[in-house]
């Protein structure tokens, strides 16, 4: 019976059905299945399959996003049910947000989705977020990486302020800083002291993996 649930959870993620994923997760718990097994044998293979279909060109971004949404919907049911020492196996904790004065969200959301699909735990603090809000979230969640997005030449300066704020707060050596957005370049990222720059959501994953492997 458990195998059947895992398959259904996987299918809900691959097919991009958040409502189904949530309902199946609830049913699994009612059937006394181990929530960690449901995650590792149902949701994780599902999101991996989504990533695989995306990389081969069969899936497009909407399928990727809705697949991640389905996983998230099931996780919200299964995660609180973890007991004892059970813990999700994540690659790293990432805080994502768009800087203050900038309301653009989609690029940052895509990065979050791609990171989630690749095993990162992502906390998206949203758009128009102050440097203080970033710092607070980093401390609160014990982030390994912070990603700051800026879509305007006028708001990209906030990324520099964030680097400076993390230095002042003594966090610069504890959290890796990724920056991105249309006006941002690799050269600019280096100039302001960020640790990584990604041109798009796909390369953001590579950068994040590289930063996790880098010595802190």
């Amino acid at each position, binding site marked *: 019976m458990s195998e059947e649930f895992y398959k259904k959870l996987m299918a809900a993620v691959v097919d991009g059905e958040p409502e189904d994923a949530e309902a199946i997760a609830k049913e699994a718990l009612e059937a006394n299945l181990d929530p960690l097994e449901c995650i590792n044998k149902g949701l994780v293979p599902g999101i991996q399959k989504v990533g695989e279909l995306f990389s081969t060109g069969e899936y497009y971004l909407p399928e990727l996003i809705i697949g991640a949404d389905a996983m998230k919907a099931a996780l919200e049911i299964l995660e609180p049910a973890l007991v004892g020492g059970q813990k999700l196996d994540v690659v790293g904790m990432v805080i994502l947000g768009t800087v203050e004065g900038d309301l653009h969200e989609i690029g940052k959301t*895509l990065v979050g989705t791609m990171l989630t699909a690749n095993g990162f735990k992502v906390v998206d603090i949203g758009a128009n977020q102050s440097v203080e809000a970033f710092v607070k979230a980093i401390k609160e969640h014990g982030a390994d990486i912070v990603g700051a997005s800026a879509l305007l030449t006028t708001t990209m300066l906030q990324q520099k302020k964030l680097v400076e704020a993390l230095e002042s707060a003594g966090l610069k050596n504890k959290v890796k800083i990724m920056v991105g957005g249309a006006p941002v370049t690799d050269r600019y990222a280096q100039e302001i002291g960020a640790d990584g720059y990604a041109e798009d959501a796909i390369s953001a994953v590579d950068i994040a993996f590289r930063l996790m492997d880098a010595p802190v």
Partner: protein
Amino acid sequence: MTSNTPDILAFPTKNKREVLSQAQLDVLKAGTYQILKDVGVKFPSKRALNIFSDHGAEVDWDTQIVKLKPGLVDKALKTAPRSFILGGREERFDLLLDGNHSYLSTDGCGTRVIDLETRQERDSRKEDVARMARICDALPLIGFFWPLVSAQDHGMTAPLHECHAGLTNTLKHVRGGTTVFPELAKFLVEMATVVSGSDDERRKRPPICANICGIAPLAHDEHGIDSALVYAEAGIPMSFMAMPTMGSTAPATPWGALVSADAEVISAMVLIQLAYPGAPVFHSIEVSLMHPRTGGYVTSIDYPFGSMTVQIGHNWNVPVLGGGGTSSDAREIGWYSGSATGMGAASIPTGGGEICGYLGMLDGSMLLYPEQIILDHELCYEVYKSYQAIEFTEADLALDVIKSVGPGSHFLREKHTRKHIRDFPLSPITGEIYLSGDRRPSREVALQEFNKINETHHPEPLPEDKLMELDNILAAADKEAEKLQTRK
């Protein structure tokens, strides 16, 4: 049985641009009549001179120049059909030359190839023609396969081998005939008959057509004209193509070049109609310019010759090979070739010629880069898409989805997005660039696409017995060619 060759896509001609007014066309036509009556055209063919003489034309047997009065021209051309079919292996590959469709052709016929393996330039061979036929079979916009390069490894019978390579590697119509010894032309007709299955079927849906080039100014080739008479007798359609070069073989003005070329083409059409009334013929003029310093052949001229030559041909009420084309003088793939392809592709819908496009070659139609056909096809397809009729209903406005998402959010999570995101299929070239996440040069991706088609696309072969018959015909033609060579 239906093969896996995709259906042919044709451009509509409703956007044809009338560059010349009817009054201007009348002036040109009057000039053509005058040249045919007063200057005449050289036909170095006894058979042609006899036909003209028998029909009352003024023939100078010493100079071999024929002068034609307007009445005789009009009488002869009255029998030339305005529309006819160029047949494919299956009916869905038939091309109806009726003025309502523009079908794209490959360019031809060059002599040099960038080798697929070594990437070094070398002389062209039959295997190149065969490979290109297979590639073009998979490209939906190409309706008309003109061997892009010559089968130079087959000497005097090269045109027959080019035709054979085409007929055995694509289901589309093949430009199979050209100027050969008339003794060899009959073998091309035999090949067409084998593919068609009977004389009747060959006449109804001829699988090959021919192109006969004149020799500007105002002369024809003996073998070309005699071969044309063989083709006409068999109902093989043919275009007569004048290739005036402004400044050397034609006056250095567009009007002078066009009127001289038109007279050359019309004189040949008159001959064919006098000999075989109703034989399918089409009109073609390709104007070039003499490079004023080197004397070289310049085909990229900033002048709407394509549109003008189509109008001139249609003014005689026959189909036209001409109009927009992607061919250029570029020697390498780069900005120049790309701009020429783009400009040429954009001029196809406004040109309105029945057969046009000329995809796949560089350096004045002489040099074949394998990937060029993919790049040309890609740009032509972009233009093709932009000329499709646009239709939608109120339901297509997706107002409910817009309402559901509201201001400031995004549509990535919507089922509507998932349903429709593929409505704009990404082309293998731009799609590859997009999906791979990096920006690979289009040329590199085009070569990859070429290789993919080369490895995977295998058009329905001809039945074994027909293949054997074609081999026998080629063997007989090769023997005949040996005899001709000895006689020479």
